[in-house]
């Protein structure tokens, strides 16, 4: 009775935590993290249900809120806005079945995987930084099968969503739809699994600090 989307989301084992979902719902996250959250939620009905429960808190607060008087012509002005755009009813935004990227990411890339402009950052790893507000950074990473992402410590929060392939670190395995949230206390070595290149969407609220010498040089040139 379950559709493919349902099965897909059941395979997802690493979901976002409540504090991240609530902050996204309240509108308190930087744009870069919002993009990772929206992409993950597009793939995970479990996270979507928890997110929409937090949205319900926002709705309840709004409904019980005090009020501020509107301008006398407020409704007329809004009806004029509506008239100016009438006939436009927004259609659902949804990615095609075979898309690699969820719809919110497609909106930013203006296409799917084949529309990404990659830059090499050494060791076979490629990245593409997606322009967002400057309080955090989000990038696509392309890691060849069997290759380690350079060892790095985090300062601040890092959120990594797998879109294709899978990676493992010392603790666990992450595949499509899984999201890993790390902080400065985690120093780990993720490795893309053999057999398929791994593509991730990763947001950081501070630059990654690479602990190896060579990657640090690459860091300077790649703008990590």
């Amino acid at each position: 009775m379950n559709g493919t989307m349902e099965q897909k989301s059941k395979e997802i084992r690493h979901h976002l935590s409540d504090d991240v979902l609530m902050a996204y719902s309240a509108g308190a996250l930087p744009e870069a993290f919002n993009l990772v959250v929206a992409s993950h939620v597009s793939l995970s009905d479990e996270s979507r249900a928890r997110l929409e429960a937090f949205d319900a808190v926002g709705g309840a607060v709004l409904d019980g809120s005090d009020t501020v008087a509107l301008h006398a012509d407020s409704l007329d002005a809004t009806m004029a806005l509506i008239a100016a755009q009438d006939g436009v009813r927004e259609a659902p935004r949804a990615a095609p079945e075979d898309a690699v990227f969820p719809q919110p990411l497609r909106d930013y890339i203006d296409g799917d995987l084949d529309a990404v402009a990659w830059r090499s950052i050494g060791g076979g790893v490629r990245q593409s930084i997606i322009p967002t507000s400057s309080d955090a950074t989000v990038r696509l990473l392309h890691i060849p099968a069997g290759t380690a992402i350079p060892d790095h410590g985090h300062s601040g929060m890092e959120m990594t969503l797998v879109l294709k392939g899978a990676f493992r670190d010392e603790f666990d395995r992450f595949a499509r739809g899984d999201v890993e949230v790390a902080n400065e206390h985690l120093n780990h070595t993720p490795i893309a699994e053999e057999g398929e290149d791994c593509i991730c969407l990763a947001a950081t609220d501070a630059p990654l600090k690479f602990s190896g010498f060579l990657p640090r040089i690459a860091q300077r040139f790649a703008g990590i």
Partner: protein
Amino acid sequence: MLTSSTTVEETGALDAAAAYVADARRNLRPLKSGKNMVADMQETDWVAMMARVRNDRDQAAFAAIFRHFGPRVKAYLMKGGASEPLAEECMQEALATVWRKVELFDPARASVATWIFTIARNRRIDMIRKERRPEPEDLSWGPEAEPDQEDVLSMQQESERLTQAIRTLPEKQRKLIEQAYFGDLTHSQIAADTGLPLGTIKSRIRLALERLRHTMK
């Protein structure tokens, strides 16, 4: 359509009734007699109003939604730091978006207040923070399928219970939740543990999503 005769429900009536009594300042309809009560006239009406906007482009129904939610959305925007003129403009844009997106509203997954909150929040990020707001992929029932009326009723009643639960929280805790959603707290200042009964709402949304996925096949 949902009417008062179909909204009678017993469970949680005492809690809700107590909250309703304390709520005289709001313009809710009176309780029906005995332990049965009209659980949520207010919210059910908004779902019906939304249906009229969606199906008939009913401007009177939209005006009713506007008069209730417009002043609340404007208060939300001003508490978030917007000036009065900007809040007014942003509120108008948000309510115009309600009209434009009405077909995407799913009453089995959200109350009208919740749905309008998400639109206002996104408008605020867009117009006041001047950032794009990435949103998850849309899930829609499409032209043929409709959500189950029982699911809709349950969701609306559960939403009303949540509103009541927030209203009856200790002052300090209520302020914290309002500040998280209405203020401009950073991520690290927001605590997810609200102490609110969100498990039932989550389960209902999960169920609605499963039914929706099934029809989308």
